């Protein structure tokens, strides 16, 4: 198996956040090269590389840039999504701390390709150290002429505005992110239209995840063919898998898409305890009860779950699946925006019901209702949050029904029918 490190190659380099250290390893060469190409050529290269978004939606990056660029409306905007609110995801934190310039270089090239001179970064407020390093990186880049007016003597200018998130998971969703920047409550918008057509301030906007942008300098430097040859033929390149939960050495592991979960677990020191289940795409995905599965978008979708942003959460046999389901349901109860009646009321009812089960006060009928509620939420909720909110609960009920039945309220020693 290839052991290519594109994004984490500076992980152990001291002061890799400093621009001089970054440039000593070829930093900002990709930007120079990109500026010598036309934006359309840059887009073509990234399209050929088959890079797909690493934030969870896996949309082809080059295509996204192209769709935004093609729109007639101006100005256009580009947003770097460093919201990282998904439980079990901590890769962007690592990147921002260790290699902010790599993100920045990718961001500037992306802005050039899309045809915008106004970039926004939306980062988790919690990442105070990382934000400081990133802001420092922006200052350094501006000093050297990689940001600001007439970058590297070209016609291209880029100004970056930094926004700290104010504590709402839903603002990691791009349309809610726009609302937040625009000074509104973070309520996701109805789609269509999509952000590439109507985005920030109703203008065509590209939103890219931190990890996605990190791949861009390497693609420009080494070429699309080099990238397309790495790893999975449909999803080339590497993925930062975040391994957490009941594992001995939780952390971020850069591996090709399609890596088998067993290999990832091995890299993480193995399961802490006995393996029971895994959430390959964090709490938005459905439970898997087997270890022998390849971690890529298509394989996991076929298995009835998903990869998302690669937040792999491992659960051992000491853990009650009822409590897991309850914990996740409470998360979505707290973090939903409240617009859609089905999600607003559904997440509250689900959290309530699962709390009761946790306390051994469950009502057996409620298991069936939760499964039906899950179907209706998937069908009718406006945004991804409502659609996935009961994935964990539903898959827990289906795969571990016995545990739930054991938590049904016993009245006078009789099981409720």
């Amino acid at each position: 198996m290839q052991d290519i490190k594109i994004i984490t190659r500076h992980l152990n380099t001291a002061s890799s956040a400093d621009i001089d250290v970054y440039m000593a390893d070829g930093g900002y060469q990709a930007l120079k090269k990109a500026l010598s190409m036309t934006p359309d050529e840059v887009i073509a290269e990234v399209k050929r590389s088959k890079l797909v978004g690493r934030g969870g939606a896996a949309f082809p990056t080059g295509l996204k840039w192209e769709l935004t660029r093609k729109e007639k409306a101006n100005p256009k905007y580009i947003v770097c999504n460093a919201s990282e609110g998904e439980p079990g995801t901590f890769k962007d934190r690592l990147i921002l701390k260790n290699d902010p310039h790599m993100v920045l270089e990718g961001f500037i090239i992306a802005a050039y390709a899309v045809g915008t001179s106004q970039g926004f970064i939306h980062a988790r407020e919690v990442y105070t150290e990382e934000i400081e390093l990133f802001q420092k990186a922006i200052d350094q880049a501006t000093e050297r002429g990689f940001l600001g007016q007439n970058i590297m003597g070209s016609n291209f200018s880029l100004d970056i505005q930094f926004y700290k998130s104010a504590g709402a998971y839903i603002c990691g969703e791009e349309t809610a992110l726009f609302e937040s920047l625009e000074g509104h409550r973070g309520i996701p918008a109805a789609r269509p239209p999509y952000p590439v057509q109507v985005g920030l301030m109703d203008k065509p906007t590209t939103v890219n995840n931190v990890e996605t942008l990190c791949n861009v300098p390497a693609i420009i430097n080494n070429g699309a063919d080099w990238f397309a040859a790495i790893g999975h033929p449909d999803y080339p390149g590497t993925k930062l898998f975040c391994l957490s939960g009941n594992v001995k050495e939780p952390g971020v592991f850069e591996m090709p898409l399609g890596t088998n979960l067993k290999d990832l677990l091995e890299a993480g020191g193995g399961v802490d305890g006995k393996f029971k289940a895994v959430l390959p795409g964090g709490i938005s995905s459905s439970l898997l009860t087997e270890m022998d599965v390849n971690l890529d978008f298509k394989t996991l979708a076929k298995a009835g779950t998903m990869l998302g942003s690669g937040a792999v959460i491992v659960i051992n046999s000491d853990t009650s699946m009822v409590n897991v389901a309850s914990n996740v349901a409470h998360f979505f109860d707290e973090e939903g925006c409240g617009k859609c009646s089905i999600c607003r009321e559904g997440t509250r009812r689900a959290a309530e019901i699962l709390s009761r089960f946790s306390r051994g006060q469950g009502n057996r009928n409620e298991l069936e209702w939760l499964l039906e509620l899950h179907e209706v939420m998937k069908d009718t909720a406006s945004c991804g949050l409502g659609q996935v909110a009961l994935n964990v609960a539903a898959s827990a009920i289906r795969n571990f029904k016995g545990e739930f039945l054991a938590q049904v309220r016993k009245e006078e020693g009789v099981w409720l029918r």
Partner: protein
Amino acid sequence: MESIWKEKVDGVITQSGSSRLSLLPCLEAVQEECGYIPHEAVNYLRECLSIPSIDIYGMITFYSLLSTNQKGKYVIRLCNSLPCYLNGTENILDTLVDNLGIEPGQTTLDQRFTLELVPCLGLCDQSPAMVINGVVYGKLTAQLVTEVLDELRTY
């Protein structure tokens, strides 16, 4: 205190303009300065940015890092999301509740500590984890928590 947050708000507006795009950074500046958003600040922002006060109040109540109530000197934010939970958040919470004598969402009588259960802090590789006034504490144990609280009581 009013003059300081006003200055910060004016600073944001000078840099980013007086459109609605400045509302979030302005609110964050006030929150950072005062630990909450006083209603005078809501009035000031209404005037400076021409935004209805109900919209500003709607913003404050939507975002969990903004508040209209003063919190304790130290705001203990303990992660309650799944990865931390799988590694023992419940024990840590019990330790905190016993030690502080308050439940999540409450503030100690001496106004020193506020305890909050928060969603994922992005510290899953150091779970269970908490953040207190911007400082990260990871790989928590009951003992470590007690030590941290003891130390914070000395300031």
